[in-house]
């Protein structure tokens, strides 16, 4: 029977919330960084580039542990945030969003960077000779032309965020209703006797979400590309 239990629903909704928040918060940073990497030369650029890609190559458990050290209650940044702003990441769903945002960041940045690099800089020059200040050039030419890449990056980042497991469970553990996402719920279920049916349902649901995201991104990208090619 395909009946979703309240616990499963909680995990599904939590996963969606974590992945959506992580993607939305990460996107402006991703765009800024992609622009910096695509359009500016500065000292330490290759180090920054490598640092952005680090979560992709590090074992997720290492990233999670590093997050715990920095953003945990006694961590360098986490302690300060908790004392001064009352923001706590450790063992909260916000921590799961932070972990997912960082783990998906390289996948978010890459397509945006590629699409900015593909923009004809001569169009940006034309824009400046028409009186556009640098931020106006960015807002009216660069960003709209990079939109397919931004959408692709957001969908990829979302897909990665919703599937994230290692860093999340290391950083914020596996607390039902707070930090138990679909992935960690499946992990718990397959270790429980008779958990197979529930795990199977969640597996199916994650496949549906992933497929939906990919189809949506294709659709957005096609529409955006049509818009840009002047038809």
């Amino acid at each position: 029977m395909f009946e979703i239990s309240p616990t499963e629903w909680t995990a599904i909704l939590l996963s969606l919330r974590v992945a959506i928040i992580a993607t939305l918060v990460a996107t402006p940073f991703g765009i800024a960084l992609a622009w910096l990497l695509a359009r500016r030369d500065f000292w330490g650029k290759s180090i920054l580039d490598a640092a952005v890609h680090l979560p992709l190559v590090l074992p997720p458990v290492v990233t999670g542990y590093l997050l715990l050290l920095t953003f945990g209650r006694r961590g360098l940044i986490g302690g300060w945030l908790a004392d001064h702003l009352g923001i706590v990441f450790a063992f909260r769903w916000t921590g799961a969003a932070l972990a997912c945002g960082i783990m998906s960041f390289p996948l978010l940045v890459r397509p945006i960077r590629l699409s900015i690099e593909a923009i004809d800089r001569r169009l940006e020059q034309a824009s400046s000779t028409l009186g556009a200040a640098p931020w106006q050039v960015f807002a009216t030419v660069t960003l709209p032309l990079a939109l397919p890449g931004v959408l692709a990056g957001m969908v990829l980042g979302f897909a990665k965020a919703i599937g994230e497991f290692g860093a999340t469970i290391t950083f914020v553990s596996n607390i039902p209703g707070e930090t138990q996402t679909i992935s960690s719920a499946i992990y718990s279920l397959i270790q429980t006797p008779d958990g197979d049916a529930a795990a199977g349902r969640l597996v199916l649901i994650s496949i549906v979400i992933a497929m939906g995201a990919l189809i949506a991104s294709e659709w957005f990208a096609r529409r955006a590309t049509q818009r840009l090619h002047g038809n």
Partner: protein
Amino acid sequence: MLRLDIEKQLGEFRLSAAFTSEGRVTGLFGASGAGKTSLINMIAGLLRPDRGIIALDGETLDDTQAGLHVPPHRRRIGYVFQDARLFPHLDVRQNLDYGRRMNRLAEDAAQRRHVTDLLDIGGLLDRRPGKLSGGERQRVALGRALLSRPRLLLLDEPLGSLDEGRKVEILPYLVRLRDEGIPMVYVSHDAAELRQLATQIVMLRNGRVTALGGVKVLAAPL
């Protein structure tokens, strides 16, 4: 009045030019590789001279000794590129309106109608640049530059990417534009084109000014 005295090293190529132009249409004439485009890119502010001064109507735009460089968007100098460079994500109407929006100028329907009539582009307003012919694209680019209300218009071989038939189609519009009275710097390697349009010629060869004067200097060998 445009006054210019600059030097610029571009790889192996050295551009070193000085001239003052009072003419309504200054023709910048020379073979390809003479430095014409680099020179007007400097007037537009897209390229910074290594040394020297550029001044327009008494306002200094570049002065390397004083460390002064007015960025392109504050120069109010229009630029029509050889390849039009219309914004592909905007339709013709939005392209034409772009300069007005960026400069926060008030809407001026009469001015817009005047320019669209002048260039016969009123029928293209709802189209995207991808659906325009080469000649139409260049006319829209002219209109777009004009509507940003520049005090000087730079034209870099605006007929360069068009075949003979299209050139004949655009030339009358350029003559109309000249008769509007807006000062222009017109870059070309085609002496015949400049004879029709320019009032003063600056001849450029290997990065240096070799002749200066009325259109009759075009008779001299390059």
